[in-house]
């Protein structure tokens, strides 16, 4: 718990240690720091030479869309698809086997970033009511998509229950108990309490969006307050064990009160936090720390797969880090994501030419239509798993299904892109200007 509490203190300290110039802009993003920051800027000639740092959060939104977001969200969608097919050899190559965090962190962070980017501009140009309505409409779309997926899932499960039986698995088949009470189960699914395995991300996203309008308002007014508020909620949720209840038992797999921190952090980066962080990210100390942390995480993760390596992990260290809690976005996972992000932005700059290359185009396309492709991925994972279980798929079948799934995702994203392009053009012909254009992407 105490690790979360000192979040702001750590930020201040890191900024000071790594980059005294950047500290001025950091102060702007921390509560009560605006005045101190201004004073610091006056003293620092080099800081004054960077006017962008002093720009208001609303101004920061005006810049164009960052293709890196689409690229990494697209890659995250592929990884989520692969991770959702159990017993798949291709899984051994996904992110989660090499560190604490996985594609979920990337997806939620980028979703927060894009939400602030798209709706922040809407809020500035059209006001609180209109932008809030848009955010809520988006939440509704995601809800409908989730229920659609649930229906497909129920069909598959009902089929398995009707056709599969084996005395060896009498205990495991208890999980199908919910089929005996469709009235309760379907209602619980509609209120998002009953969520089958691997269908936890969209409900999280829905809750995050429902709470986003007031949060965005604060982000545009005082970004630091929003971030601090999110951190406080995170710490309180962990301390008092607050989470949404699930049906028939337990709590949500992704605790919205914990994961909102990553979402708001993404949004904070979009309204100017990223520019501020750029100073920190250029520092060699941060780079070194990030590399060291990633190596540490890699080693710990490898001990899960190679038990003999576990003997090198002293008991006190194990007691300190375990369990690495995904439900409550463990600090170790969050830190791992930050380290990955720090290294990524160092090597992949915003104007990197590779972003235009045809090789990365498929991932970018998928990232630009994330809701559709995410849902498709969940469906394809169901279908893939079904095929593997019906035909006792070997390594070749598993690899084939993985590749085919990603190809279907790319083809669908291309189709949506083409269709939206067509529609966009006809819209433009009708009303020449189209305010609030999403620059090829969506929140």
């Amino acid at each position: 718990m105490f690790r979360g509490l000192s979040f702001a203190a750590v930020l201040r300290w890191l900024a000071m240690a790594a980059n005294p110039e950047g500290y001025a802009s950091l102060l702007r993003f921390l509560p009560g720091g605006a005045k101190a920051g201004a004073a610091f800027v006056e003293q620092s000639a080099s800081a004054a030479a960077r006017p962008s740092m002093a720009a208001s959060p609303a101004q920061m939104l005006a810049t164009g869309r960052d293709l890196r977001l689409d690229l990494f969200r697209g890659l995250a969608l592929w990884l989520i698809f692969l991770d959702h097919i159990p017993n798949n050899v291709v899984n051994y190559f996904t992110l989660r086997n090499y560190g604490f965090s996985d594609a979920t962190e990337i997806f939620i962070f980028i979703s927060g970033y894009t939400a602030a980017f798209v709706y922040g501009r809407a809020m500035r140009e059209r006001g609180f009511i209109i932008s809030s309505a848009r955010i809520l409409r988006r939440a509704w779309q995601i809800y409908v998509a989730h229920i659609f997926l649930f229906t497909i899932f129920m069909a598959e499960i009902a089929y398995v229950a009707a056709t599969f039986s084996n005395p060896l698995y009498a205990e495991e088949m208890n999980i199908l108990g919910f089929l005996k009470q469709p009235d309760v189960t379907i209602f619980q699914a509609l209120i998002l309490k009953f969520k089958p395995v691997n269908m936890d991300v969209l409900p999280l996203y829905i809750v995050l969006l429902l709470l986003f309008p007031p949060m965005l308002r604060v982000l545009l007014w005082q970004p630091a307050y929003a971030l601090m508020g999110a951190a406080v909620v995170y710490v309180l949720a962990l301390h008092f064990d607050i989470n949404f209840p699930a049906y028939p038992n337990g709590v949500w797999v992704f605790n919205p009160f914990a994961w909102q921190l990553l979402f708001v952090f993404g949004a904070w980066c979009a309204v100017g936090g990223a520019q501020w962080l750029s100073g920190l990210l250029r520092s060699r100390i941060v780079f070194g720390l990030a590399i060291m942390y990633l190596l540490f995480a890699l080693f710990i993760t490898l001990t899960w797969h190679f038990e003999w390596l576990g003997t090198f992990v002293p008991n006190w260290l194990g007691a300190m880090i375990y369990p690495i809690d995904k439900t409550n976005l463990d600090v170790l996972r969050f830190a791992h994501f930050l380290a990955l992000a720090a290294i990524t932005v160092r090597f992949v700059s915003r104007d990197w030419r590779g972003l235009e290359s045809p090789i990365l185009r498929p991932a970018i396309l998928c990232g630009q239509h994330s809701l559709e492709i995410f849902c498709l991925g969940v469906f394809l994972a169901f279908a893939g798993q079904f095929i593997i279980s019906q035909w006792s798929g070997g390594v070749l079948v598993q690899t084939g299904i993985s590749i085919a799934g990603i190809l279907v995702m790319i083809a669908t994203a291309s189709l949506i892109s083409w269709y939206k392009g067509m529609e966009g053009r006809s819209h433009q012909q009708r009303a020449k200007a189209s305010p609030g254009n999403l620059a090829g992407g969506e929140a």
Partner: protein
Amino acid sequence: MKFITAVAAVFTLTIGPASAADECEVPQSFIASDVVLARVMKEIKANHRLNISVIGTGSSTLPGPDGASFAYPARLQDALKQLLPGNEIKVVAHVQSRQTTAEMAAQLTAILAADKPALVVWQAGTFDAVRGIEPEEFSASLVAGVETIVKTGADVDLLNMQYSPHTEALLNVSAYADVMQWVAQEHGTLLFNRLAIMRYWNDQGTFDLYTATKTSDMARRVHNCLGRALAYQIVNAAHLTP
């Protein structure tokens, strides 16, 4: 993992009579451990007897009136008698379906007092996953139980879930398996990795665990092999040469 499996397969071991040897093949790496079952070793060497309590839920037995006699606890007793001839071996199974680990932990004191076991094989996790018990809560119950057992001087062997490919999309057991691995590692107890062993058998084609069947034939063969592998693991960890 598959890579290790493949490498480990080269160093496989076989146990028991030659006729059933091939079917129950398990890679040494799944059985080997640095943990020493000191109490088991002492009981056999000093008193030539061994009392084992198996505590578990539905997956520690088989359906039907004679199911228990074909389930792994009974097979474990037979296999140990073969491996350790001249010793008095008694395996008592306390198996009840639909129990969470917290419920099992609550009964431990009574079971330990009645059986006075040198070793407790504790199968857990499946029903917790079915019920959606939080992994943290599962971990706390497991730790409390392990500490209760260790206090009586008995050794512990934690036994994790079955590999069940058909329910994988519904029932995510990996978080619970991770907890069991950490608890075993932290408390220096043995872990029988049923999940990995059954997955290995499935991958090797020894048992096609995707098969839908109403008969108990395959289930009995699987339990027989589990009992034998468990016996081998215990003998190995107690440094007793069969």
